[in-house]
């Protein structure tokens, strides 16, 4: 027994003495074995589902199964490396070569963690595959029934056009309206006080109201109240001559489509969120920027317009996108007032076919449209920073 090993037993007088890694390496080996076992199990589940679906399992599927198991078996490689490093560390320690032992032990630990990390990931993927194909592909058929998807995707996509229309117009309006509310909230002086209070009340109310409620109240309530009938005809009358038209004909010109009520409701809701984001951005600009701008003779509003808001907008890009994605997803709520959007269409298909694959389509569309937006905003922010920031 070496001196150092003796010290280790006594109570670790040397803080640099490496901890043993044999157990960890063994666990890595066992874990790799377990993963391969699970991979084999998953291929069995898939195979039986394929049999049930009467899909001919030729050589192709055998190759796929083999590749899956082989890919999982790669886990043995880092596990084995870990084991061999552990052995080397053990030997180095027995010859009192403490530095060598420490390096080998660290390598053994690193390789075993690698095994655990990749092993856990492959287990999740295998579990997902098994989940889809379990119960003779019951889950897969419910959510990913390809014939239904192939047949109906264009119908859902066309209905999704309504969502796009609503959120694009609402986003433009929200950008403007949110800024107006934010500036109202920041009005200076005692004269600005009532305006500030009004803006605060607006934000409190519409941020507190669930979007679905606002949609319901605006979409059903406003038409029932008859207010649009009072306001719209005189305005349209300026451009269109109603003389000699029947009431039904006039109605064709003056009816406001339900889509516009949706846009109004979502603008009101998200205007409140975005106003808060704008306000945070404006507040985050250092007061010295105000002083510098005002000292050059620019007025309060000019300072906001040329100095403060441009800087604030650059800072709030990411949270702004958050709210926009929220708005886009909330267009799925417009069906409560009977507008046929992508989700509503998908639900109708789903209940006719007793299969949720159509809903999967709309789910995938919603996810897909947000990804390019996120990347676009990342790029925008990066480009802006590269332009303004020092090269360092």
């Amino acid at each position: 027994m070496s001196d150092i090993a003796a010290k280790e037993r006594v109570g670790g007088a040397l803080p640099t003495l490496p901890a043993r890694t044999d157990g960890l390496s063994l666990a890595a080996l066992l874990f790799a074995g377990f993963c391969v076992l699970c991979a084999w199990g998953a291929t069995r589940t898939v195979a039986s589902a394929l049999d049930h679906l009467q899909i001919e399992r030729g050589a192709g599927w055998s190759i796929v199964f083999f590749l899956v198991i082989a890919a999982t078996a790669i886990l043995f490689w880092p596990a084995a490396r870990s084991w061999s490093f552990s052995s080397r560390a053990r030997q180095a320690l027995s010859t009192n070569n403490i530095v060598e032992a420490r390096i080998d032990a660290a390598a053994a630990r690193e390789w075993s963690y690698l095994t655990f990390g990749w092993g856990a990931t492959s287990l999740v993927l295998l579990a997902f595959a098994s989940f889809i194909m379990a119960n003779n592909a019951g889950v897969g058929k419910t959510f990913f029934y390809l014939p239904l998807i192939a047949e109906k995707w264009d119908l859902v996509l066309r209905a999704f056009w309504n969502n796009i229309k609503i959120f694009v117009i609402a986003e433009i309006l929200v950008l403007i309206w949110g800024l107006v509310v934010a500036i109202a909230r920041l009005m200076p002086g005692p004269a600005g006080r009532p305006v500030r209070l009004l803006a605060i009340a607006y934000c409190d109310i519409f941020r507190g109201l669930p979007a679905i409620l606002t949609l319901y109240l605006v979409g059903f309530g406003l038409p029932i109240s008859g207010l649009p009938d009072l306001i719209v005809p005189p305005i349209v009358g300026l451009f269109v001559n109603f003389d000699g038209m029947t009431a039904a004909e006039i109605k064709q010109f003056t009816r406001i489509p339900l889509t516009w009520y949706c846009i109004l409701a979502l603008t009101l809701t998200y205007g409140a969120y975005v106003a808060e984001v704008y306000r945070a951005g404006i507040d985050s600009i250092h007061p010295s920027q105000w002083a510098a701008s005002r000292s050059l003779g620019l007025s309060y509003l000019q300072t906001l317009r040329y100095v403060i808001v441009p800087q604030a907008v650059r800072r709030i890009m990411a949270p702004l996108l958050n709210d926009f994605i929220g708005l886009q997803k909330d267009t799925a709520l417009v069906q409560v007032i009977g507008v046929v959007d992508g989700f509503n269409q998908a639900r109708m298909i789903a209940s006719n076919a007793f299969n949720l694959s159509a809903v999967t389509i709309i789910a995938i569309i919603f996810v897909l449209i947000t990804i390019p937006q996120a990347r676009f905003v990342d790029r925008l922010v990066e480009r802006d920073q590269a332009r303004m920031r020092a090269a360092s």
Partner: protein
Amino acid sequence: MAFLEIKDVHKRFGYLEVLRGVDMSVNEHQVVCLIGPSGCGKSTLLRCINGLEPIQGGEIKLEGDRVSGPGVDVNRLRREVGIVFQSFNLFPHMSVIENVTLSPTKVLGFSKAEAREKAMALLSRIGLEAKANEYPDRLSGGQQQRVAIVRALAVEPKLMLLDEITSALDPELVSEVLNIVRDLAGQGMTMLLATHEMGFAREVASKVCFLYDGVVHEEGPPEKIFGNPEHERTRAFLKRIIEAGRL
């Protein structure tokens, strides 16, 4: 009549009285240096003159016209009185040329081309015309401060307030900024500057005012203040400056 007259000016931040009756004046083409320990109210006084801070007592007169108190068109006042800050405060989202032309185009109503031409002339005077399209973050501190001075000059003010404009600079960058101030003084620009650069104050000042505890404790020509100060406090302040190797 003095160009700028400050009479018994009081300024409070809540319960803290920063200025307790400041009296001083600046004649046309004079360079007046405000010296004094940190927190004595130098910056506050300059901000009050520019209308960035309201005052609670006394009055400030520019060319005989009262420019403090309610009803004063501060935007108009600020065209006459330019200020340069310790921390430059350039607009980071605008290039150098945009920084300099913002006020001439938006406030004075110059056309873009006119403002640009004038700005380029000013920039070439300080040797920065090559940096016209750079963003402030890419400039050194000294360059940024020179741009800030030019930005204030672009409005063609009659009076320049300089608020410790070299305090945030690395020592080797101080001279390039002071050279501009020296040039301005040579051209007869009326200036009031708060500074810790005593050697510079001694060189360019027509008058030095020692501000202490919110009042002007002692004022006079630089030879007198630096060579033969009357008051005990002035002497103590200068002694500390000399000990720090700054005079």
